[in-house]
């Protein structure tokens, strides 16, 4: 969200040479100054194009102190109200933009309660009081946002359960997708076979919430390390927060900056490189499911005219960053992009890649391009 207001051309110019543009921080802080005093809630309800302060990390619901309380019947009342809202939606979201339908939203109600209510009451004694991590009023407010503004569930609760991790997320940070988890499996496979890779230095470019970096950090050997970069200061600080939560500070280092720029010192030394860069063609952003198009950071989604800008940039960089035998894996928008990328790699005059493959995600879409450096 934070940078989604940036015209595309600015981001395009964030090239390895334009050091002076590496500081979106200052720019942002000036911009966000005016919205600062509104506090968290107003920031959430503002239109996504208004940036929020990068220092303002939101604590996800499940990590907040349970200092509020409510009776079980109050909660029931809320639940019924929330369900009524869901039923009024019916299949409307699904039909307009492939959005969530009743059962999905219904499950979200359950999960929201899971994150907010300290101990769910089992025997229904109506007047029994339970501890909450947020106020009752806020619960109403949040669910209203979910339905009326289509604010993503993960931003509402402030986290996403991804693989075996619970990753904190907030506006301005891409919510990790289940498809991306496959990259971790691929890394697991190669490091199991090769000690050099297992104990080497890895990079996750455009890490967002830090999902890939943390998961890979956990599968590497004792010597193995990950450097994760992200241009967005919010993403960088959220990723930092997640790394700390998993106590991986010694293993995963977050560096703020564009793609490979913060990795100058690691040139030619990388054992592995992974990335889930923005790959959606610019003209398709508007037609996306509202949760994505209206709320998630454009910076993390928009891959330029044909969606390949960043993928191609990374491909070119990968050759110089990886050491011989190094592994890479990229996520793409599907078959067309994957094939284009493979073609680009194989026919590039300075191509140094071998064993280049296209792999499908769990839904059968040819989503990943992997290979090794010669």
């Amino acid at each position: 969200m934070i940078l989604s207001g940036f015209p595309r051309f600015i981001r395009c110019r964030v090239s390895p040479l334009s050091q002076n543009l590496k500081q979106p921080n200052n720019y942002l802080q000036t911009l966000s100054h005016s919205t600062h005093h509104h506090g968290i809630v107003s920031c959430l309800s503002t239109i996504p194009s208004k940036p929020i302060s990068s220092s303002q990390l939101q604590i996800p619901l499940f990590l907040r102190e349970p200092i509020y309380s409510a009776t079980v019947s109050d909660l029931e009342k809320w639940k019924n109200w929330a369900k009524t809202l869901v039923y009024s939606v019916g299949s409307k979201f699904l039909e307009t933009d492939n959005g969530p339908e009743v059962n999905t939203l219904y499950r979200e109600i359950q999960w929201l309660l899971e994150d907010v209510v300290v101990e769910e009451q089992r025997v229904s004694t109506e007047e029994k009081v339970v501890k909450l991590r947020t106020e009752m009023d806020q619960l109403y407010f949040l669910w209203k946002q979910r339905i009326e503004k289509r604010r993503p569930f993960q931003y509402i609760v402030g986290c996403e359960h991804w693989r075996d991790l619970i990753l904190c997320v907030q506006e301005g940070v891409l919510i990790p997708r289940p498809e991306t988890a496959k990259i971790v499996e691929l890394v697991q496979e190669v490091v199991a076979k090769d000690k050099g890779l297992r104990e080497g230095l890895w990079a996750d470019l455009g890490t967002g919430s830090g999902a890939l970096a943390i998961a890979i950090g956990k599968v590497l050997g004792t010597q193995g390390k990950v450097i994760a970069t992200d241009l967005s200061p919010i993403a960088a600080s959220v990723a930092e927060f997640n790394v700390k939560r998993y106590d991986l500070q010694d293993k995963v280092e977050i560096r703020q900056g564009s793609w490979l720029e913060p990795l100058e010192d690691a040139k030619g030394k990388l054992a592995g490189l992974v990335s889930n860069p923005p790959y959606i063609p610019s003209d398709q952003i508007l037609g996306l499911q509202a949760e994505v198009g209206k709320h998630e950071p454009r910076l993390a989604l928009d891959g330029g005219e044909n969606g390949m800008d960043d993928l191609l940039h990374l491909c070119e960089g990968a050759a110089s960053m990886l050491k011989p035998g190094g592994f890479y894996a990229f996520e793409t928008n599907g078959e067309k992009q994957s094939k284009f990328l493979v073609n680009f790699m194989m026919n590039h005059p300075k191509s140094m890649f071998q064993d280049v493959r296209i792999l499908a995600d769990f839904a059968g879409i040819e989503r990943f391009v992997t290979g090794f450096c010669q």
Partner: protein
Amino acid sequence: MECLQSLPTSLGIPHVTLYSKNQRIQRLANPNNPFRKTTPIHSPLFSNYIFPITPSNLNPSRFSSSSTTVKFAVPENQSSVGVSETDEWAMQDFYTFRKDVEMTMERVTEIRRSSGLEKLQEDLTALENKAADSTLWDNQAKAQETLLALTEVKDKIKMLTDFKSQVEDADMIVKLTEEMDSVDTELVEEAKNTIRNLNKALDSFELTQLLSGPYDKEGAVISITAGAGGTDAQDWADMLLRMYIRWGEKQRYKTRVTEKSMGEEAGIKSATLELEGSYAYGYLSGEKGTHRIVRQSPFNSKGLRQTSFSGVEIMPLLPEDSASVEIPEEDLEISFSRAGGKGGQNVNKIESAVRMVHIPTGVAVRCTEERSQLQNKAKALSRLKAKLLIIALEQRASEIKEIRGDAVKAEWGQQIRNYVFHPYKLVKDVRTGLETSDIASVMDGELEPFIKAYLKFKYSNSR
């Protein structure tokens, strides 16, 4: 007897109210009697009358068929007892007590006989020899096993010995009273207590005998699926879910609806309920099958009578890593719910359902309740294993490989109980023949009579 202690208190004796033949006659004569068949029951209806806690209410004859003279101690009796009648009342009370002691004596003898006391003694000797062996600790695991078995056998023998000595003590008091020709109220009261507690212990003992399957001690996973019948069936599935939730809450199990898929108009398409606590699986295992409802459907615009079905599956709630079966990867077909469209960054859906099919048997599970795909996958695998283990057990197959896939479907779909709401009210178990007209209580979770009847039915069939 560790397992005895770990029985949930609510399943212990207070609920086990048993009736003797005379009581049955009285109950049968009662037009309000909801249970036409003779079966131990616990129904709120009865809580209006059985009470003074005298041994007369503790029927010792669970498995024996001999009768006792038992009186209902109705409130009038108590209030109308005059001074002149006190002695007579005491004597009557004593006779009742004497009868109870006789009954309990028979019961203890029967239990001691059927428990194979001699065999237990042999086992004890063998285990004691093993435990005394100097090589015992060469194999730590084996040693632990031996010592555990030894304790179990010892406890069981001690329990059976205690049963005998307690009933003999009470019998002594009966004989003493007869000789002295007068009632020592204090002494008799104490003996009554002994008999009452003894009968409780005997009830628990019998129950654990019924629940001796390898997974009976575990918690349970109930999964309910609406069958044929459209919205009416989906509503019926929801009613069943409520019924099991109430049952679980009454047993003080930790009850959790982990998955629920709503029907379009009303009710549910499917739901999964987890019950944590001792013996949940043992009690519920007999609930597996198709449950049929007949009623005037509120979803039928013509108000016609309609029949709908819902399927209930019961699996033990096994800790994720405890199921010791390994299923080869190639035997599994795993599919994930798809975000639809282009996936990846284009879509954000929390749906992370995993469906897993065991190809050789066709047994399938679906897991949607966890918040990440990986967790759903782990849980689905664990459920699939539990399901396969149970099927293997039922088919008496020693390995998953031996499961006959064709038999699985038929078994799972067997109709086990009818719930008729209209034109008359009746719940009838197809297997045990137990029936009641008090359908409201059943739907409110009063499943004890059906569960116990089935356990006994299964037990007597297996012998």
